[in-house]
């Protein structure tokens, strides 16, 4: 498998081989789906919209609808204003969403379409909204696009009704699965605090099969809720790459204090999340959550000998990788290769510091890397476990490394988007998958005389 990787270290300095990221518009589309009654709109050629829908559908195994401006040669020369105005008219007339969330593509960015102006001139029915974000694909990654769309939701919709804030909080969950968003909601409900979470794709991309097809499922943050987020006391922004920008705008525009946090993956990050709520609202942490935490600690002790000291390689989106690396250190594993495809300076600094604090040296940390490079690192000095998206399976097979799927996209296994990796329940899932992967390998490779019933 992939034997074309040449022997010996070969650094490629231009371009990417086997990318570890994808482009902005997909992130913007995913964020838009987290608004109730929203139809995302791709302002560019049809290929973009088709690919993004396809990629998201394959990961979530649920329908993903979005409209496209359907650029052709004419629009590319004369500008896409006509296409966008026609689209807006058609979409409201036929699909009747509450809100259209428009994102640009590299094509419309390059020809320089002035979206705010075009939207102003468009025919938008009474009571409906159109928001937009600029998401050129030649900059950043899909996480940048997600962050941009969240910012747009705030700039367009969030409103402060005055100096008095309501006793409620906002949560920007980051580029996580609906299963994660459900878990965050469950935890906050247990804490007894009123929350506005946006975007919220639970009950949008993990809907049940009832033989009735709902074009706009029941889930998603409503426009009214997003508007009301300007009246909250505080925003918990989960994931620096995905959520901090939007929280900053909320602070500037509406005076809502923003608290930057990691994604609540792992014990420490989940603790930090819950403590942030406790410290702000002065609530008591319920016994059931303490129980859940205790179970995680208990399991870590019960299973530590399955994975302690093992070398692990991790790749994926920056917020996910940062939080997971912290948990892997908690578990006592040794992260040796940590890579993300998204560009950004803070990633390498943050991970390096974590490793230093844990006394680990010699690891390779890279932002804006690709999987060809990761495979070469692994070939040079092997690891005991690989954790990452479905694209990691080629490396896992070629280098015969146990493999745990994590992050976005997972295209070759089901159920992942429905189950959490956040919170204490998420910790248990991660421990289970990591431990099982290593034990499966042990069972596969050991001699008959070492094949054990009890592990």
């Amino acid at each position, binding site marked *: 498998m992939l034997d*074309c990787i040449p022997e010996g270290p070969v650094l*490629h300095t*231009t*371009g990417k081989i086997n990318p570890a990221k994808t482009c902005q518009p997909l992130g913007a589309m995913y964020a838009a789906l987290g608004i109730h009654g929203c139809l995302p709109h791709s302002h560019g050629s049809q290929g973009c919209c088709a690919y993004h829908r396809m*990629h998201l559908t394959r990961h979530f195994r649920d329908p993903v*609808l979005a409209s496209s401006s359907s650029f052709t040669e004419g629009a590319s020369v004369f500008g896409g204003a006509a296409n966008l105005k026609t689209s807006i008219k058609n979409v409201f007339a036929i699909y009747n969403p509450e809100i259209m969330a428009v994102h640009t593509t590299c094509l419309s960015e390059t020809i320089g379409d002035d979206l705010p102006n075009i939207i102003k001139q468009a025919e938008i029915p009474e009571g409906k909204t159109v928001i937009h974000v600029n998401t050129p694909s030649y900059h950043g990654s899909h996480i940048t696009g997600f962050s941009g769309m969240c910012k747009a939701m705030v700039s367009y919709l969030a409103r402060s009704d005055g100096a008095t804030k309501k006793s409620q909080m906002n949560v920007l969950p980051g580029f996580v699965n609906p299963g994660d968003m459900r878990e965050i909601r469950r935890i906050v409900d247990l804490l007894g605090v009123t929350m506005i979470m946006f975007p919220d794709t639970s009950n949008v991309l993990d809907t049940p099969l009832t033989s009735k097809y709902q074009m706009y499922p029941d889930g998603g943050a409503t426009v009214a809720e997003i508007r009301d987020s300007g009246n909250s006391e505080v925003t918990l922004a989960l994931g620096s790459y995905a959520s901090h920008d939007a929280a900053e705008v909320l602070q500037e525009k509406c005076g809502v204090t923003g608290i930057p946090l990691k994604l609540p993956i792992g014990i420490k990050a989940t603790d930090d999340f819950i403590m942030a709520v406790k410290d702000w609202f002065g609530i008591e942490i319920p016994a059931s959550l303490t129980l859940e935490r205790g179970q995680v600690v208990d399991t870590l002790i019960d299973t530590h000998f399955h994975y302690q000291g093992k070398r692990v390689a991790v790749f994926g989106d920056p917020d996910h990788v940062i939080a997971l690396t912290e948990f892997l250190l908690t578990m006592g594993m040794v992260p040796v290769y940590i890579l993300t495809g998204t560009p950004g300076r803070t990633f390498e600094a943050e991970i390096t510091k974590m490793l230093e604090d844990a006394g680990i040296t010699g690891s390779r940390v890279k932002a804006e890397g690709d999987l060809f490079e990761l495979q070469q690192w692994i070939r040079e000095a092997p690891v005991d476990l690989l954790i990452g998206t479905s694209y990691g399976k080629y490396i896992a097979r070629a280098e015969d490394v146990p493999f745990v799927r994590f992050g976005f996209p997972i295209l070759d296994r089901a159920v992942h988007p429905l189950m959490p990796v956040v919170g204490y329940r998420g910790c248990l899932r991660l421990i289970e998958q990591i431990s099982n992967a290593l034990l499966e390998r042990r069972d596969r490779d050991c001699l008959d005389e070492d094949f054990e019933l009890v592990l």
Partner: protein
Amino acid sequence: MNTSSVIPEEAACISERQDSILTAGKSKKSIHCADDSLAGSVSQRACVFCGARVVLNPVTDAVHLVHGPIGCAAYTWDIRGSLSSGSEMYRNSFSTDMKERDVVFGGEKKLAACIDEIVEKYHPPAIFVYATCVTGMIGDDIVAVCREATRHHNTEVIPVESSGFISGNKVVGYRAAALALLRLITPKEGERVEKTQKLNFLGEYNLSGEMWLARRYLAEMGIEINVAFTGDSTVAALKQAPGACLNLVQCTGSMHWVALQMEKQFDIPFMDVNFFGAENTAESLRKIARFYDDPVITGRTERLIERETARIRPAIERYRQKLTGKRAAIYVGGAYKAIALIRQLRGLGMEIVLTGTQTGKTEEYATISSLLDEGAIVVDDTNPAEIERFLLEKKVDVMAGGVKERVLAYKLGVGFVDHNHDRKECLAGFDGAVNFAREVYISTCSPVWKYLRTPVGGA
């Protein structure tokens, strides 16, 4: 806020789309097709780059370099189930990963640097360079860069002019890919390709090993395949293509034009074949045997057909009994496949109530209409609103289509068979006919649907 589950009657059909939907036997005029999609209509179509990429990607030992921002390369990384018996180079995704600076100042230098590095380090026999929307927009001259690189490195570096925005119709992408292939296979000054008795198989992408299946049948008949365009192909084998004595054309949408050119340039005749469905397979094998006009080959062919048909008959019968009377819908990329599916599903006793394609042409739709029963719907370039309406109106039991249609069908409680380019099972030839029948059966008659149609708690 209640967003109702089924879109109201009038709204499901955009008035501008009225001419793209026909009812077989009732509509007098021909369908409006082969045109750009309507802005805002949520078409299921993709773009020119998509068309070019799916045609060329199966060339196994070439490097496929996408010149543009990261997205285009990321979304097309190994998504086609095309199998290789040798090199796996084509399963890597190469991109020039253009950034803002490259968009502003031009990406030609970066492209040249990428090509240099690839040649130096990986020594592929050929590199295909795909243009994308941005590079087409800013006017990067990939033809010039490729020409210079070919000269400099003495390796084939071939441009594919596949900017997405040229059209929403993949067929334009097929043409870009075809031009690139012809450039690759045309012998240079002074080169000669020896003429042989082998044939080329155009429009066969070796999904789930379907090309290997065809090769086995032909080998049994005594005929050798030189190379398929482009399933399990290598650059070297493709360069031998002008030496074939016959071209078979399966996917007409992507390869008909290539066959015409090869007839003109290299004097190679071509014939349409179809390996989907037992009768189609038998017909095609006989057609090929007739061309070679050799009694030994003919004898072997008849024995093969007789043996295989007898072997699969019991299985097909079993499935036909379970599926007779069930209602099927078809929405695929090209008309060639739609027509093949109509025959196969009908052979299983099913009624076909809807057929549509993304890229069909007027004559092809005329053929489709004539094959269907009166009252069946024929549609071009449909969208989810229409699909939903048709599936419910026509009480469809199973649909054949691609990934974007699958989830929609499931949500509506309709079974689904993936006949698209990420299918996992061999659906060609005699065994393929049985596999297809089984896939239709397990989806249509799955016990899961019981849980749907009898809701819990008498809801």
